């Protein structure tokens, strides 16, 4: 188990190094941030001074070397626009995105998995067909459009929920979050629902497919032959067997929601990381872009590690392989 963890951490480190090089080169290739930053009327001397100050006159390899050295000492640089340490900037936005992503995943899971179980258990029922039809809508209708409809319906027409922004932020277990106040929760409902629809559709279909396959398996028939009821068969025999694809997709979706909730954050004016990265791309704020992308890679690596550990918990056959 420890050996497995160690191996995975090494792999993760390698992925992060490779990604940092790719990101650095990619960002280096897209124009000169100084031209965006300074007054077009500024003279050549000032321009050259600024370029030298940010080290942009150095060869790429040298720039990367300095960047890597700073990162290793915990310094991701300073935003060229906000004049703040990048880490502080990103972390100030992170809780908003995290609570949005978490709420969306919770909604998708709590609604999607039970619906998927039902649709797989009674595939011919009318209700199952309705569920499956809605799930297709869930992941084929564009997020921005659904977001606009939600605002139109709940904020404009019915007027029971706010149309955007993050509400009052309270503290829960020492963490600043909107979940601590009723106003905050009201602000969270629409964007979280909007963000959850795609994942909900995905989870419904995955769960149903797993259920349908598992319900005709011999071990289910054997469990029934022992006199177990359908509830026990589903919740104690089947669910653990079909959990691996569900957990995999859950992990990937959670990662991509954290990293790329841009559309929803923009529509609902949610002050999360997605808006930060779009702003920094527009203003060519290199340190923010680089740090953000590396943070995203880091998040994915961590989530995948957790998912891999979950596999071992769910399936003993994987556990034995990992240990040997």
């Amino acid at each position, binding site marked *: 188990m420890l050996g497995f963890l160690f191996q995975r951490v090494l792999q993760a480190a390698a992925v992060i190094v490779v990604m940092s090089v790719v990101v650095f080169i990619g960002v280096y290739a897209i124009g000169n941030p100084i031209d965006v930053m300074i007054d077009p009327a500024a003279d050549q001397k000032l321009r050259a001074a600024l370029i030298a100050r940010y080290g942009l006159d150095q060869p790429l390899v040298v720039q990367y070397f300095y960047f890597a050295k700073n990162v290793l000492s915990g310094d991701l640089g300073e935003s060229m626009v906000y004049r703040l340490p990048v880490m502080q900037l990103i972390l100030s936005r992170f809780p908003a995105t995290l609570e949005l992503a978490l709420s969306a995943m919770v909604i998708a899971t709590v609604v999607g998995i039970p619906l998927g179980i039902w649709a797989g258990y009674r595939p011919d029922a009318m209700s199952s067909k309705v569920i499956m039809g809605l799930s297709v809508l869930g992941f084929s209708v564009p997020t921005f459009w659904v977001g606009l409809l939600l605002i139109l319906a709940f904020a404009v027409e019915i007027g029971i929920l706010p149309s955007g922004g993050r509400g009052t932020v309270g503290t829960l277990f020492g963490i600043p979050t909107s979940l601590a106040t009723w106003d905050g929760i009201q602000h969270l409902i629409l964007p979280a629902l909007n963000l959850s629809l795609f994942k909900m559709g995905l989870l419904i279909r995955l769960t149903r497919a797993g259920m349908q396959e598992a319900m005709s398996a011999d*071990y289910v028939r*054997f469990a029934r032959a*022992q*006199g177990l009821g359908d509830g026990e068969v589903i919740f104690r*025999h089947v669910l653990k*067997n079909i959990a691996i694809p569900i957990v995999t997709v859950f992990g990937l979706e959670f990662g991509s929601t954290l990293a790329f909730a841009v559309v929803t954050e923009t529509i609902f004016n949610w002050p999360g990381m997605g808006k930060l990265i779009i702003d920094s791309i527009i203003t060519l704020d290199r340190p923010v872009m680089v740090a953000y992308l590396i943070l995203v890679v880091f998040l994915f690596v961590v989530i995948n590690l957790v998912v891999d550990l979950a596999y071992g918990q769910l399936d003993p056959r994987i556990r034995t392989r990992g240990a040997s």
Partner: protein
Amino acid sequence: MSALVVENLQTEFVTRAGTLRAVDGVSFSVEKGRILGLVGESGSGKSVTGYSILGLIEPPGRIAGGRVLLDGVDLIALKPGELRRMRGARVAMVFQDPMMTLNPVLTVGSQMAMAVRAHDKVSQRAALARARDALAVVGIPSPAERLEAYPHQLSGGMRQRVAIATALLHRPAVIIADEPTTALDVSIQGQILAEVRRLADETGTAFVWITHDLAVISSLADDLCVMYAGRVVERGPAAAVIAEPAHPYTAGLLASVPSLHEPGTPLPQIPGSAPSLGRLPAGCRFRDRCTRADAACTADPPAVAAGFDREVLCHHPLVRA
């Protein structure tokens, strides 16, 4: 007295091609502590008969008629909830492939404890203790440790013993075994058969042993039922049926068993193949493949007595009482 009586059982499947009757009027009975071999080719309806007894036929299949009497109670007439309480407790089942039968992600102990607690309100600890005892009964060494094992950590023979132990947990009157040794090595097969014989004798459990392997069943069963195309074509004490088959199909099956055949000569085969359920010939269903068939065989064959407690469904049986 009979532990299980099956009377005129009919199970059909509704398909686009029409309603197919996989089991067409099957009747037999098993005495306490005895082993009945239900023999036939693939598609003869023997497994469907087994599932029908436990009420495990799923749509588009359904039981169209007949009675399954267990201690005088008709299982077919029971409500789903009542039937569930009988399953596992009074009548249990063991399946062909032991790797597929046990849930791969749960320990042997937790699966068996679940089966115990499906019928008896006991603590998890008590359930595990019963599971351990059941494993010991089927000859599994160090049963307490095996409870912690996952199915993939056990050999095929061991897994099948676990399945049999699970079936035995509630001391059912009848165990239906659907080709339980087909997927196993010959040596392991022998051990399991000996174990089953011992269990039947000691616990009084009646077994219905479904198989296509006449060589195996001839050494195990007390009685035989030979099925062909959804019907029982011959029924009687195993020794008598093997020694002197009355139905031409039984004779053909016995002749094509390699171990019962003289080495060095070509193995006889039954010509043709089993008819599909959608295109059964009228009258005797075996007549297209039968060397003794004549014009009389286009009519439904009569049940003819063929010796002590023997019956054969044939116009021209090889043996008559």
